[in-house]
């Protein structure tokens, strides 16, 4: 089965809900960012140190949540036919909060800003965090441009906001597990 339609060759694309949009529309940017973020989590997984294997299941769960976020963003209005195009429930963000708390308990308190870097898994995690923030910004823009849609994305927004925190903590967790020291920011 061919995956290309040719319907996007002139700069537009179709949403699940059928509308045709230009590919620079905030909504398309938003679900594109989510797709990029999901791929970056694949990169994190590919280089995850052995001592962080307990994170594999969590990361897979997040990847499948992001599929759902992408489908939801690619649908304007609620499509009653598909569970996947509905907003994420708040429990998914709670799952992240609990995971953050579990990692945080094992990490030294931060008293300074740290430079993004360290173990490859930490580096990819930082890149993913930045893309997650971008996905969040584009989601906000999508909501502001389609005022009636705002109510639909409260779970998604909470999730993306929490996920960037998760990715920050995950980067530190990977560095600690591999005894890679964090590099503090020297302001002067």
């Amino acid at each position: 089965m061919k995956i290309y339609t040719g319907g996007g060759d002139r700069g537009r694309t179709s949403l699940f809900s059928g509308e045709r949009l230009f590919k620079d529309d905030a909504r398309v940017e938003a679900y594109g960012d989510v797709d990029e973020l999901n791929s970056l989590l694949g990169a994190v997984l590919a280089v995850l140190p052995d001592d962080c294997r307990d994170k594999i299941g969590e990361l897979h769960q997040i990847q499948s949540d992001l599929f759902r976020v992408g489908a939801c963003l690619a649908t304007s209005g609620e499509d009653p036919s598909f569970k996947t195009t509905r907003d994420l429930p708040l429990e998914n963000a709670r799952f992240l909060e609990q995971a953050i708390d579990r990692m945080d308990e094992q990490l030294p308190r931060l008293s300074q800003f740290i430079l993004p870097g360290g173990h490859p898994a930490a580096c990819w995690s930082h890149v993913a965090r930045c893309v997650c923030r971008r996905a969040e910004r584009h989601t906000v823009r999508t909501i502001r441009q389609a005022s009636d849609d705002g109510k639909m994305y409260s779970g998604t927004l909470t999730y993306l906001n929490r996920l960037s925190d998760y990715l920050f903590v995950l980067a530190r967790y990977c560095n600690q597990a591999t005894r890679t020291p964090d590099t503090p920011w020297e302001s002067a």
Partner: protein
Amino acid sequence: MTSQASCTSGNRHTSRILHRQWLTKDTFTLTLERPPDFHFQAGQRIHLLTGGKTRDYSLIPGDRQDQLTLLIRSVADGVVSPHLSRCPLGTALDFTGPSGHFIYRPSSRSAIWIATGAGIAPFVAMCRTGIQGFVLLHGVRHDDELYFRDNMAPAALRYVPCLTGVSSSLSPYAFPGRVTDYLRHHFPEGAYDFYAAGRREMIAEVMDIVDHRFPSSRIYSEIFF
């Protein structure tokens, strides 16, 4: 949107071929047993696994509750469709599914269904759920390929056969040309819900026409090949 999230797949099933009916020299319906636990939404398809190959086919509810129907064009240089056209009745077929999101979504806009050839299959399934009042453009070469016309025409607000074969101009009720010609030159401007199934080139062209002539419309598509 190109997304893996658009695919869902169900369990694996096995079903026997009960009946084959030729509609034209290369197109037939295949009636299969419907597994007892098998449910689908009109417009969805199955993923058939046979001889190490996999191919998708849109589902049509059978005339009986315990049957499923496929509308298949046997492609001359193809692998699976010629096999399905020849294998004996009673042959067991494995498939997964149902899958796909090409289903009817009721809305305040008029539904315009566009099919080429066997692309009519998902629309036949939708029509069998009782949907009426759609406009149907069915593109084929000759009028004997207007499969399920007797079911579709009475339910449609307008049924427009678009015939591209040489003899097509002899059919007074048909549009002599491609579905995309009809859409581009003869369809009133407005906001519609377009549903298109069939050849990839047709669907890409429909999308282009929709972008330019019907910009506030929606479009849902199912590419067959």
